[in-house]
């Protein structure tokens, strides 16, 4: 699943039409089969209940982030209001589930995400017809405004949005098939994993269609796309509607997972979260948002147990990535692709060693920053709870001078040492790529 967004990897060999032979088919469905197997055996590896819930949340976030990347990575549309389609999908799903339960309709739980998809598509079309009249910065602001419109409306339309408590449901009361009542989390996990895989395949397939290719073209140069016969506004509108569809499915899955949907699911915070996830993972490749979704969900769950200001760390990580790694984690991995393709394992190892050398001081710098942030927090807002805190299992008294001195030393010293390792990494990088180029020529 290499850089699909640029299509470079899928250029066919000259004059040869791809025959549907065994090798070609294997290459096509191999990765998906492996993914399916991985999804299937994960619960055997991570057995705790909370881990299973986290895996379920990851599956939902993967669908949501991939739907977001249909807009940003594929078509160049930066949206600050994508959670609208996610949240509305969730709300329609819970109302549908409650109706099914109330009227005892013969509809099993696995079919409920279809309602979410329908909802996402419907609202995608309605709001998209207005939003996609503009592109670029204006589109971003419009998406923000529409998001606020829906979020503010949620406090007014209390019947549909359920006010502050939201709308709840019971997923075990739908029609049971194959003896599954979807009460236990493990059953819900497999439901989510199945839908996640389906959506991943569907969204990937979309990128391999004439429409998907033209999305990339419109992203690159909308004017030129006009001069080859395409209306960029139509492309954007279709992309927007389909992105809404998949976001709606993710929303329905979250409704099933938590049996509760409230107005925060359509809000700016949720829209920001999916943007963060997609961007940190890397918007330039198909799997980037998947990586980002997994990482962000993990951080969200893990960090919030460790510190109250986890959102600040999130924001700082995001800014760091925008400034220094705008292609995200996937981008950072992909830079090394030429080394992998040239099978230059020796140079790669040396490069990895250089990275490790640079990592030491970087961690020191990071520790110092964390210390400062945590101490500031405990001195200001949480001062009423006492100013003694525990950082990295070390008890620190935020009021005394010594920890502050230590923190400053860590930051300054760490940064200085880190800077000293840059030439080392630079040289290893240069050597690795030179060797890889040489090896490539020799082959």
């Amino acid at each position, binding site marked *: 699943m290499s850089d699909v967004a640029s299509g470079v990897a899928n250029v066919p060999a000259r004059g040869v039409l791809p025959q549907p032979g065994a090798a070609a088919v294997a290459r096509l469905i191999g990765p998906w089969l492996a993914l399916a197997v991985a999804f299937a055996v994960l619960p055997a590896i991570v057995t705790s209940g909370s881990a299973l819930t986290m895996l379920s949340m990851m599956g939902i976030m993967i669908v949501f982030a991939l739907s977001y990347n249909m807009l*940003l990575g594929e078509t*160049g549309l*930066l949206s*600050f209001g994508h959670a609208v389609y996610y949240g509305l999908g969730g709300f329609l799903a819970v109302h549908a589930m409650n109706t099914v339960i109330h009227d005892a309709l013969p509809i099993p739980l696995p079919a409920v995400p279809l309602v979410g998809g329908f909802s996402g598509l419907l609202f995608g079309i309605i709001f998209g017809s*207005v*939003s996609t*009249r*503009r*592109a*670029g*910065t*204006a589109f*971003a*602001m*419009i998406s*923000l*405004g*529409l998001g*606020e*419109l829906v979020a*503010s*409306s949620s406090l*007014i*339309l*209390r*019947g*549909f949005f359920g006010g502050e408590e939201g709308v709840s449901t019971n997923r075990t009361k739908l029609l049971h098939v194959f003896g599954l009542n979807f009460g236990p989390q493990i059953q819900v996990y497999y439901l989510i994993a199945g839908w996640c895989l389906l959506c991943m395949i569907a969204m990937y397939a979309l990128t391999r269609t004439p429409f998907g290719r033209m999305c990339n073209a419109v992203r690159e140069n909308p*004017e030129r796309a006009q001069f080859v016969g395409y209306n960029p506004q139509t492309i954007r509108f279709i992309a927007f509607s389909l992105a809404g569809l998949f976001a709606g499915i993710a929303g329905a899955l979250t409704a099933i997972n938590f049996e509760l949907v409230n107005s925060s699911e359509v809000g*700016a915070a949720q829209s*920001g979260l999916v*943007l963060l996830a997609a*961007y940190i993972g890397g918007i330039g490749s198909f799997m980037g948002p998947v990586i980002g979704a997994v990482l962000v969900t993990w951080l969200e769950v893990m960090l919030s147990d460790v510190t109250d*200001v986890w*959102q*600040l760390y*999130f*924001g*700082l990580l*995001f*800014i760091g990535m*925008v*400034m220094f790694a*705008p292609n995200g984690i996937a981008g950072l991995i992909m830079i090394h692709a030429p080394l992998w393709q040239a099978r230059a394992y020796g140079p790669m190892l040396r490069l990895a060693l250089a990275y490790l050398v640079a990592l030491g001081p970087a961690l020191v710098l990071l520790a110092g920053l964390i210390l400062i*942030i945590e101490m*500031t*927090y405990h001195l*200001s*807002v949480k001062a009423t709870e006492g100013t003694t805190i525990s950082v990295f299992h070390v008890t620190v008294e935020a009021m005394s001078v010594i920890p502050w001195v230590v923190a400053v030393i860590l930051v300054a010293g760490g940064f200085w040492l880190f800077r000293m390792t840059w030439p080392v990494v630079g040289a290893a990088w240069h050597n690795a790529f030179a060797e890889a180029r040489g090896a490539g020529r020799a082959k």
Partner: protein
Amino acid sequence: MLELVTISTLNGVLYGMLLFLMASGLTLIFSMMGVLNFAHASFYMLGAFFGYQISQIVGFWPAFIVAPVLVGGIGALVERYGLRHVHQHGPVAELLFTFGLAFVIEEVVQMIWGKGPADYRVPPSLDFSAFTAFSTNYPAYKMFELLTAIAIFAVLLAVLTRTRVGLIIQASLTHSHMVAMLGHNVPRVFMLVFGVGTGLAAVAGVIAGPALVTQSNMAGLLGPILFVIVVVGGLGSLAGAFLASLLIGLVQTFAVSVNLSVADVLGGLGIAPPAGGPLFDLWNVTVAQIAPIIPYLLLVLILIFRPTGLMGTREH
């Protein structure tokens, strides 16, 4: 009735002026540097909190001078060491940088000052009634806000049209490369504009803080309205931003003071309420309750009927 209209108009114009104080800085930065500063409302918030903190130590009037300068300085540093670096990665990265910045600023403010409102009060020197219109006492502090805003605009207009720096800025708005080739330090001009733009937002925060609420969600509440204003007014148009600011300021102020329910208004227009369904609640709330969403409804209307904004130019 007349009293209501007069007071609401005064308040609406005042609110619109405050909005324009921010929207003007935003538009200048956008026109010149091509980046929409997502964190603009965050600088407004910083102005309010700095103003509060400084006024706790030395009083309101020193804070009034010092806080905007401090915030503008922070803005200039952000431009110099952050935005300038991100510029090479393209416009999406620039917008996302300011988005991340807004997020981080809100978190830092929450971390230091907490989530509740700060006790930022009108200074005693201004805490009297300016005049009595009909039966309502109009506070002097509001007149102060209005006069400050107008004074700032006058100064800004004078600087832009009559000083050398102002001319360079005007030229850089449309032809930054040419201005650079003429020997002017365009990056420094950018830093200046960003610093002044954010400083303006901070002034709005310092003076609005005591009148409205000073709280860590200020930026999140005002930010979207600000962006609606620039889209409705037309991206890059100062005149459009002015019109849109006044429009939204007046409409929201009047809406809040109307006690009719939506059903009354729509019924007067001949639209009957639905029997049930998701929109049913809409008919039973008062116009005042839907005042927060009116700017966004305006946005949708503009997009349908005049997509480039009130005074925007056609996008190519």
